[in-house]
């Protein structure tokens, strides 16, 4: 599945290990929040990069104190109509200050990417859009009305910059 980050297509070096899966092989892995909770010490002791995949009902507060140990957080969109992942992303970026990779996985469509980007995602795993489309989606609007994750200045500030 194509993975787009910062405007370019990159190779996916990460593997998601299902809850029953074997943790012993090396390489960069992500696990569910439940597995992270129950096997945290083992996972953090590995000398490979580690990430967590959040499902829509997961509470990102649980990751708050481990954020500097995580290189990747995947936020899963089982259905693109389920918008909980946008709030998870905003919390991670703006409230908890997470600076690692935030990747949207699952049912990720071209027309959601603008909102995802503004909510703090910087990587998109999408079967339904190519690089060109993702880049176009990010540039569809020159201006925004409200602050969010990222550094776009909302128009209510631009209007009063002299």
């Amino acid at each position, binding site marked *: 599945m194509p993975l787009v980050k910062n405007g370019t297509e990159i190779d996916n070096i990460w593997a998601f290990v299902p809850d029953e899966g074997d943790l012993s092989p090396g390489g960069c892995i992500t696990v569910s929040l439940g597995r992270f909770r129950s096997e945290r010490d083992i996972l953090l002791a590995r000398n490979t990069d580690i990430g967590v995949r959040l499902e*829509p009902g997961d509470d990102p507060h649980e990751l708050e104190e481990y954020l500097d140990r995580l290189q990747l957080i995947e936020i899963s969109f089982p259905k*693109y*109509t*389920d*918008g*909980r992942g*946008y*709030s998870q992303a*905003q919390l991670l970026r*703006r*409230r908890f200050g997470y600076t690692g990779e935030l990747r949207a996985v699952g049912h990720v*469509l071209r*027309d*959601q990417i*603008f*909102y*995802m*980007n*503004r*909510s703090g995602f910087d990587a998109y795993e999408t079967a*339904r859009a190519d690089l060109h489309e993702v880049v176009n989606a990010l540039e*569809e*609007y*020159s*201006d*925004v*009305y*409200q*602050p*969010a994750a990222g550094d776009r200045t909302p*128009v*209510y*500030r*631009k*209007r*009063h910059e002299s």
Partner: protein
Amino acid sequence: MYRYDEFDARIVSERVSQFRGQVKRRMAGTLLEDEFKPLRLQNGVYLQLHAYMLRVAIPYGQLSGRQLRQLAIVARDYDRNYGHFTTRQNIQFNWVALKDIPDVLAKLAEVEMHAIQTSGNCIRNVTSDHYAGATKDELMDPRPWCEIIRQWSTFHPEFAFLPRKFKIAVTAAEHDRAAIRVHDIGLHIRKRGDVVGFEVHVGGGQGRTPHLATLVNEFVPEAQLLDYLEAIMRVYNRFGRRDNKYKARIKILVSELGEAEFRRLVEEEYAAQRENEKIDLPQAEIDRIHAYFAPPELAAKPDKSSAFEALKAEDTEFARWARINLHPHKTPGYTSITVSLKPIGGLAGDATDAQMMTVAHLAETYAYDDIRVSHAQNLVLPHVALDDLPDVYRELKAAGLHTANESLITDMIVCPGLDYCNLANARSIPVGQAVQEVFADPDYQEDIGRLHINISGCINACGHHHVGHIGILGVDKKGEEFYQITFGGRADEKAAIGDIAGPGLKADDVPGALKRVVDTYRELRADKGELFIETLARLGHDPFKEALYAAG
């Protein structure tokens, strides 16, 4: 009224390009219908029984003459010469071809209009008092804050895929004409000393499980309003139910969690906001938006107008219209006019292109270029000099827009029903028309006084039957239409959900049954000043239920 600056204009024009691209991809088949659906919905495009329908946003119900004229042109060039004004102060076009919609949106953008978020599971058009800025009974004009909320909610990246649609209404008047207690969030502007703030009601709504909103916060100072709204929205987005679309509105979250727990979650989320998350709208921006809503400069006039008084004395039809369709203005010598879109036997809320042109012309000539859409599906000219009423009335009459029934029994809210709508179980329009016929006599209507009948063709309650003084709900029982009657609903500051009177009636029996109910009221009222809803409250529902089923 608010005018777009370069930023607003660019955002709306980029939206047109974006949607044009989406339609192109849909037509080429690279975008599947399932994937296109939420995109078209967030642009007001529904697939109805017969065709696509386009719902255009009229923010807080305000239009200029130029905008209304453009809507008339769209009706003429892309639809069948009419448009339908809705209970959310928007307009719908029922017969627009999908391929033409990008062009229609481009035409709308020319006059600073759009269809953004008029549908879909996102924050919808903000609604307000249709007399805002004109009425005597308001604390202040609520429209600047409606506009601030409109901008904040437009393409809000976190709240585009909520569990369900989300409606916000704002009022600043003691008499609530915005129905704030049946909205997802209802805001009532208050003042504490010099500080403007908002009483925040959450979790009202109609549909199959009607709820009145809960008072969640008595006073959120204006500077914190948007941050507080963000807290409510985040709690809803994270915790609102997504397993069942009928339980997905915020009213269900509030009622399942309970008022106290819901409030606690909102307060906790609000308290957790860090400085970098705060919206912190600059005072200069608040002032900039308020400046657009400065009241028109109305020339000083005496309380009474001789031209107006003279025509009233000689033309009883005009005098009746003036008694019924005018609302007191804060400035002496002026009034607000309701242009009724409820002629007897007509289609509630429909206006032809020619009628829209007439109202646009009147607004520009006599009414400071200001037009409103009311949630009762009428148009309003909020600022008209009493001296000009004879001329205005003459033009309205020539266009068939002079029906004198504002808030009377024939001024019904009627959803499109089974004649147009995909969701409906029963017809609404013909039943509404038949009820209107029974009460058509102008003297009779006026004698009955204020009485709201609202009709919905299904449980989704687009016709607001729950909050009609008399509500009519169409249901389907084994292929036959029946109509359930409710009594005692109201949408104002004493908001209440109506009670079902008993078994449903056949369509043909509805008008006669309602006539018996209304005549019972006329016999039982304490005096002519006591409204139906007041007599009902004083005596209880029994005498009226008895009358409803009396024919047996």
